[in-house]
């Protein structure tokens, strides 16, 4: 243990962090995203990805999906701290490994190159519902939906095939079956 001259206690052994997905329902009002994001940065929590949009125009509700890592104790704190924010209505969280929940990200790939290279790219993306959104003689924009790690992998794989630009969303999540988050 390092010798300390500090009156603060020395950090003690840490548990292993896990990846969790938070789904937060908030009033769609000015500054609400800043409150949520500020809570994460202010308390030293991590944000791996973030997706936010209004989901109910009548009730004025937005849904924020945040992928984060933390020990169970930190994850507990994140939920409780989020719940305390005034514009937050509901908070749900689950582990990334949770089989009861679907979670997806979308990516747009711009490929520049000859026809055969673009074909190769499409082929490589086959498992991830590729859609061609734009096509010219020398380029294509391909949309895929997949998991984060899969998109990471494709990103690497397509580089030698002419991938020049990637744009991707954060993860969004939905429970399987008739159940909804509560």
């Amino acid at each position, binding site marked *: 243990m390092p010798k300390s001259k500090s009156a*603060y206690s*020395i950090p003690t052994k840490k548990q292993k962090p896990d990846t969790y997905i938070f789904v937060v329902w908030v009033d769609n009002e000015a*500054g609400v995203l*800043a*409150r949520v994001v500020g809570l994460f940065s202010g308390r030293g929590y991590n944000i791996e990805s973030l997706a936010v949009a209004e989901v109910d125009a009548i009730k004025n509700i937005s849904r924020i999906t945040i992928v984060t890592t933390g020990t169970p*104790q930190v994850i507990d*704190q994140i939920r409780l701290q989020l719940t305390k924010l005034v514009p937050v*209505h509901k908070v749900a969280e689950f582990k990334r490994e949770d089989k009861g929940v679907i979670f997806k990200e979308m990516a747009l790939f711009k490929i520049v190159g000859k026809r055969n290279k673009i074909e190769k790219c499409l082929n490589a993306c086959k498992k991830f519902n590729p859609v061609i959104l734009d096509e010219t003689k020398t380029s294509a924009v391909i949309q895929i939906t997949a998991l984060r790690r899969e998109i990471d992998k494709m990103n690497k794989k397509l580089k030698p095939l002419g991938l020049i630009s990637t744009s991707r969303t954060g993860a969004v999540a939905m429970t399987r079956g008739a159940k909804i988050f509560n």
Partner: protein
Amino acid sequence: MPKLLTGAEIVFKCLEDQKVEHIFGYPGGAVLPIYDELKNHPSIKHILVRHEQGAGHAAEGYARSSGKPGVVLVTSGPGATNVVTALTDAYMDSVPLVCISGQVPTHLIGTDAFQECDTTGITRPCTKHNWLVKDINDLSKVMHEAFRVATTGRPGPVLIDIPKDIQFAKAKYKKPNKEKKLNGKSHNKFSQDQIDELVKLLSKAKKPIIYSGGGVINSGPKASQVLREFVELTGFPITSTLQGLGAYPGDDSQFLGMLGMHGTYEANNAMHDCDLLINIGARFDDRITGKIDEFSPNSTKVHIDIDPSSINKIIKVDLAIVGDVTSVISKINKTISKRKNGHSKSNKSNIAKWWEQIGKWREKDSLNFVKSDESIKPQHAVQRLYELTKNKDTYVTTEVGQHQMWAAQHYKFNKPNRWMTSGGLGTMGYGLPAAVGVQIAHPEKLVIDIAGEASVLMTMQEMSTAVQYNLPIKIFILNNQYMGMVRQWQELLHEKNYSESYSEALPDFMKMAEAYGCKGIKADNPDDLDDKIQEMIDYDGPVIFDCHVDPNENCFPMIPSGKPHNQMILGPNDQEDNKIKGKGKALV
């Protein structure tokens, strides 16, 4: 058609409906319409401070001593940024404040206009919630909501930013909703099962301790009453955090004194060795727990708190009861009484041995200090102050540092809301303006700021406020010419390298008192101390008391860094035969 009111009129209508009697503020360009309206509302008295931070701390003192929310009114830009320290302080110590700030007109927001700043952006992390009112039709709703957020659940500060054009614009006024819709933020949903479980633990405990905190004070005077009943019913020992002092009588035999870094030997050892720890309205702050891994290693832990995010934040507990202290403890008391069925059978005999052990720890007399005939010892000064004011229902505020800890150790509080100190944030300069706020709330009571000479200089300008409103606050300065706590740490941790902790050019506090138009008293001899303190108490008006104390005195006992509760450093008497050696020295 109902009458249309201007934004400024709506602000005052809301304040009247929220039964606000005092606001602490400082005018400026962006709040002039509100200040213009002030004259039409005689039930609301404005206290003009000398710096916006002072307004914030005064409102904190007002709120803590009265249980009502403190209201602050400041202008845009520097007015708002100056109040940030006080808002953060209130946030850390759960003090209900409603801060109204002016803002540049809506069409100028974002243009770097004169005295513009992103007030809601700056104050977002230091308030429970804040609002920028961009539509006059939202104003009355937001104002009432602000009071509700500030005062319900775990209390805290809120801020309402009102652009100048909104203050001029007109709208209908809406009264507050009678029914309190809580947006799912109410946390008083504990169950009888939880209470039963706790009562079972109580009856089995052999070495129990109650550790109460500021939550008891915040829950209202009833909470202190039911806490006292609870302690009497169980016969358990009780210790308190800095913020909780006064919830339980400081001179009672079941009270072990304050716990934590500068807590008593008996309180800290009892925390370490106990088998049942009942936390009531406290938050396992790092100044309390010491080393987390070795914090109270063999106890079943119970946590009663209104804030669910306080549970398991630092210390994992075995039983958590989320609720308001008053309702939870009342329920526990009722359940205990019912169980006993009129019989007085309790487990008091089970814990007799525990009390014996506590008695042995008490014999250490850990708050002792070496008395002197030549110089005034700061602990002695606080003890004399206590003895001479204890029959007067005195309100005490403090600054931050050694004097604060000595006040907490040696001044004994018997009632809640009598002790106002900056615990969480540790804001030097808190005590003087807080005393102003306390005196406004309690004009007939004796209000003393136990201060250090370094802290008090940070907000000294508020003496001018005290004189203007003829507030007879007593500023009792323990003057050791050092930033004492900094000096103490440098002595213990940094090989006596007193880097920048000595104040080379202190003002003459006697002349300063004269300049402000109040009374100055100076004491440097222990023989005259009592007479001088009596003179201060008897004087009808504000006093600056310059008490010259031994500059080398350290605050003991103390839990050194990275150590658990049972490894305290005791005072000089004990240190003679218990020197810290070798490896331990590096850890101090």
